[in-house]
């Protein structure tokens, strides 16, 4: 460990709360909501990797890899939905995006 675990956890919690604040502030813009989710998932990855380093176990790195795979699937689906809804409604405001039906 280069630094105590608590410093890493403090960094991760600051990062997570920044992502949460991003979601709360920009809750009308769907792109910024997705960016906030990215920041929060990165904080979770930081916790996993630092735990893996602290306890000398590779499981944390494996789950960080799974978070990366899950994020790429989630972002591709969410952005495809954004493109589809923008093509129909010409907006990215969440309050106007209520239905997915044709």
């Amino acid at each position: 460990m280069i630094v105590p675990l608590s410093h890493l956890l403090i960094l991760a919690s600051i990062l997570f709360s920044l992502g949460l604040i991003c979601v709360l502030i920009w809750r009308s813009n769907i792109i910024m909501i997705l960016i906030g989710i990215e920041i929060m998932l990165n904080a979770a990855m930081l916790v996993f990797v630092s735990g893996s380093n602290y306890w000398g176990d590779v499981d944390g790195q494996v789950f960080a890899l799974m978070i990366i795979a899950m994020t790429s699937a989630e972002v591709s689906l969410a952005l495809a939905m954004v493109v589809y809804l923008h093509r129909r409604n010409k907006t990215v405001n969440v309050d106007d995006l209520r239905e997915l039906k044709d």
Partner: protein
Amino acid sequence: MEQTIFYILAGVIIIATLFAITEKHPVHAIIYLVTSFFALAVVFYQLAAPLIAMFEVIIYAGAVMVLFMFVIMMLDLGSEKDAKRPTLTHCIPALVLAGVILVSLSLLAFKQSGAPPIVSPLLSIKDFALSLFGKYGVAIEIISMQLLFAVVGVLYLGRRRKL
């Protein structure tokens, strides 16, 4: 030396993320976020996870953020004038949350006694690969199914309809 680099990187991560979430222009927010992810990748490298650091650079900063940029530019959201700034009533819950988190974090940070870091065994990429494809082989299969479902869903949503 490593400690100094870590604290500098932590500062870079927090400041870049702060700029990213307060930026009105989405393209600038993406650029700040890429900076933050590069610094986070170096932190992962310092934590003896070089493979995760590489994946962070390649997949997060390289693929996911470029996908965001692609969508923003394709939908022409960057030049939009009505990217309205959130009003104060939008910001109140976030400010309350920020205050609560700041106070609780500072209480926690001053209360802890600063135990010396323990020496952990070195993890090689071989251990990582053995655990990934041995113990968690089923999870890899599930993730590949998940990516396949994502591809199918994206193809369904992105097809051109006759309007």
